[in-house]
């Protein structure tokens, strides 16, 4: 059985000359769902234009919005701004039907950096990383586990993982971390 990995403590999980794997501190996350006609109003209410293309990200201040599907976005924000987001959406719900559901605790985020960060991703992710531009993200799969893969830099990635699947993926990343150092 996968060893316990304490998801309550942010910090470095594995590190080698090749790559570093770190657990990031909690943030506020929301799943926003709405049909096309409603998107303008929602953008206005949130003060950020909802990106229209799947995989694109919108940013304002510390708030990040990624488009994951034709009617689906994930909003990521500092925890102290969560209230602002819920209020803004609630205020227009009657005229602008949508679904805003908090998923802050559904997921945890792992950051992968270092000269061989991309190689580490390839031990579990079947995507062609050359097709993932810096600044964008995709929902994809890592060793059978659904994940949102963010590319923050050429060798700088984030993986959003559902909480109970995270230990499996993290353990695999740790293994790969050592393997890559040996090359």
């Amino acid at each position, binding site marked *: 059985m996968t060893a316990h990995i304490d998801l309550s403590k942010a910090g470095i999980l594995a590190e080698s000359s090749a790559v570093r794997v770190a657990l990031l501190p909690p943030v506020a996350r929301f799943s926003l769902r709405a049909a096309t006609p409603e998107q303008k109003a929602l953008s206005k209410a949130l003060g950020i234009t909802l990106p229209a293309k*799947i995989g694109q990200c919108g940013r304002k201040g510390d708030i990040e919005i990624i488009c*994951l*599907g034709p009617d689906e976005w994930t909003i990521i924000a500092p925890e102290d701004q969560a209230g602002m987001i819920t209020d803004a959406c609630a205020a227009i719900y009657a005229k602008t039907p949508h679904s805003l559901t908090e998923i802050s605790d559904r997921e945890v985020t792992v950051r992968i950096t270092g000269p061989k960060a991309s190689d580490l991703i390839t031990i579990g992710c*079947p*995507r062609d990383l050359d097709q993932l531009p810096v600044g964008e993200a*995709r929902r*994809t*799969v890592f060793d059978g586990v*659904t994940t949102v893969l963010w590319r923050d830099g050429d060798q700088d990635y984030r993986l959003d993982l559902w909480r109970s699947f995270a230990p499996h993926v993290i353990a695999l990343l740790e293994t790969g971390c050592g393997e890559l150092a040996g090359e």
Partner: protein
Amino acid sequence: MLLIHCPYCDETLPELEFTYGGEAHIARPENPADKTDDEWRDFLFIRTNVKGPHFERWRHAHGCGRFFNAVRDTVSDRFLTTYKAGEPRPDLAVLLEDAAKKEPSK
């Protein structure tokens, strides 16, 4: 492992991100209560299981989450096209023409 073009993401991606959804264009009858047992059997169970171009559904389960339709040749497993749910059946003759052009064989 197949390569599948998701019409919503507009990317061609590995099969591992998708789940198969069975034959396409089998709509659930409007008023089920009015249907005969035969009609309900056909809806539930009868499939064309065609050997050749097959209209089928896939879901981009580990991606945008959408169900969409595809035409795949069940002999070569090659996709002729994929299209969004709700869009009409594409014309098979046209698809086969295009496919013939794309054939790598020379």
